[in-house]
């Protein structure tokens, strides 16, 4: 088998693979090992190790389920602040694509219990091998499957919660937001039949007297 690698000098001086080799076994093995280690650190919520995987640049980017983070500093601040329990996170399907020897796209489907409910998550990462830093994540995106049932279940709470918090001056930690939205939604459901109940003419704002 002949390895064909076509390269040409680009105008900025670096090299770009124009017809890169797909999933070269040694590169694939290298990236797979990295992703395994990353997963271990994620489940342990080992923030200092996790930070080491991200490109320390203002161009690094991470979209989470509840947050949009621009730059390594924002990513790091978010990770340090959040309280998570990823203990039961399980990889369901992993797809790794390497293009040449310095670019990899890792896509993972995973399951995770959040607030007692099982989530089906998706994680996409773009890895680049820098000559001075080695492999780093330059961009990542995490989401979870929102079934029509769940989307309906959460109703207006995802929009209302943060807006009400802002109006009231309560700073909501992004890590707390899903729980707050969930609890607001539970409250909305509990209260719904009460709101629909047609009370006879009552004092509009009664004070309870036992």
């Amino acid at each position, binding site marked *: 088998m002949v390895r064909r690698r076509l390269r040409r000098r680009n105008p900025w001086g670096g090299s770009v693979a124009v017809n890169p080799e797909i999933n070269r076994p040694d590169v694939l093995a290298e990236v797979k090992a990295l992703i395994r280690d990353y997963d271990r650190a994620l489940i342990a919520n080992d923030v200092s190790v996790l930070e080491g995987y991200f490109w320390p640049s203002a161009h690094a980017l991470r979209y989470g389920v509840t947050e949009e983070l621009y730059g390594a500093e924002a990513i790091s601040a978010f990770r340090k*602040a959040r*309280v998570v329990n990823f203990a039961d996170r399980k990889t369901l399907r992993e797809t790794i694509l390497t293009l040449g020897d310095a670019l990899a796209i890792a896509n993972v489907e995973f399951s995770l219990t959040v607030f*007692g409910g099982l989530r089906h998550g998706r994680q996409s990462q773009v890895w680049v091998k820098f000559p001075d830093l080695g492999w780093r994540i330059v961009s990542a995106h995490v989401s979870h499957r929102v079934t029509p049932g769940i989307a309906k279940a959460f109703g207006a709470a995802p929009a*209302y*919660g943060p807006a*009400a*918090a802002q109006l*009231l*001056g*309560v*700073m*909501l*930690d992004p890590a*707390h937001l899903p*729980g*707050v939205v*969930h*609890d*607001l939604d*539970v*409250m909305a459901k*509990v*209260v719904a*039949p*009460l*709101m629909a*109940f047609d*009370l*006879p003419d*009552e*004092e*509009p*704002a*009664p*004070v*309870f007297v*036992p």
Partner: protein
Amino acid sequence: MSEDLALLPGAVVAANVRAGRMKAEAVAASVLARIERLNPTLNAFTLVSAERALREAAAVDAALAAGDDPGPLAGVPYSVKNLFDLAGEVTLAGSKINRDHPPATQDATVVSRLAAAGAVCIGATNMGEYAYDFVTVNAHYGATRNPHDTTRSAGGSSGGSGAAVAGGLGAFSLGSDTNGSVRVPGSFCGIWGLKPAYGRLTRAGAFLFAGSLDTVGVLGRDVNDLAAAFDAMAGPDPRDPVCAADDLPPLSPGLDHGLGDVRIAALGGYFARGWIPEVAAAMAAVTEALGVTARLELPKPELARAAAYAITGTEGGEFHRARLMARAADFDPAARDRFIAGALAPAAWYLQAQRFRAWWKAQMAEVFAQADILIAPATPMVAPNIGDETFVYDGVEMPLRPNIGLFTQPITLIGLPVVAAPVHAAGSLPTAVQLIGRPGSEGLLLRAAKVLEASGVCAAPVVEPD
């Protein structure tokens, strides 16, 4: 140190101490020894106030020696949920944040009244953080374990009080009940619980949760002790703006008067669904012992529960808003998000709940025209395993914690008095039945409790944890 004295009913301790047959100090030492041995297993206490207990006991013995009356609760050992102020101690209310508060400068009014009656305070008990809880699995102070089965919850939020009383660590314990926090530990730990009517016992010096629902209550192994503790604590208090201005006659003297022509009805509908065998057996035993045949349905109990839910979340969230803004990360995660959600709840929910509350109070007055005491289960399940997230109710798997108060929460809405009466069936975990009355009927409820206690159907034996 013998623990025999620790296991005596409070009334027996008081009678013996007052007669000079027993030293209060010996009783206190006996209870402290038992706490030292069992608390590492149960995690019922967050503070053992040994010095205070021995000092108060010595004062009782000295008063008696000097010919003074040491009080009706002379030498009776008791604990308090750690949301009650004890002079010189920091009032935790189950939280990490309150550790930064200065120590209380004086006792809560109910504690100072118990002290004046000769009772001996042995410590403060674990609870769910800021009382927003039914299981006492506390992120800062650990889970309290049920003496009947230490892998199970003692209930909450007064779980430390429940485990202490069931485990023989004090004759009674003060708890608080907003949506069921006395009745639930009463049920899971198989002990008596008295949740008086709203405003009946002063809350001054208690760290509140949802102010328009909060009541001070008592957990005990003996109906006499509930009545004696209530009598010592009752009465107006200018330090609590919602405390009743009138004084009820003491409950203890009429305890043995029986029930005469008192009308008792079991609640149907909402309260008769989803019974597990333990609950069905307890309801059958209690209704039979009291000769109950009447059955009543409350109007819209599910909406009463919804209203209590909304009022609790909103009042609790708003009460903690400043703490949530400054120190959200220091809250127990199990309570934090619910408090924040409550702080953000729309005013319309709260006001509709308040309107419903006024309507329901009028409806319930009509119910009480037909019966004097209503009977219903206290909890839809027996003590769950610590860490359980769900339970099966009426064939459907449901989240556990939000539904433990299914039967207690509606009753709370208009502050009715309730006695939780414990039933122990052989070979199964205990559960409790609620005896619900109109405001001011605490004495009547305790008379019914006394009938059940005398019949042997209800009892709260000391349990030796495994």
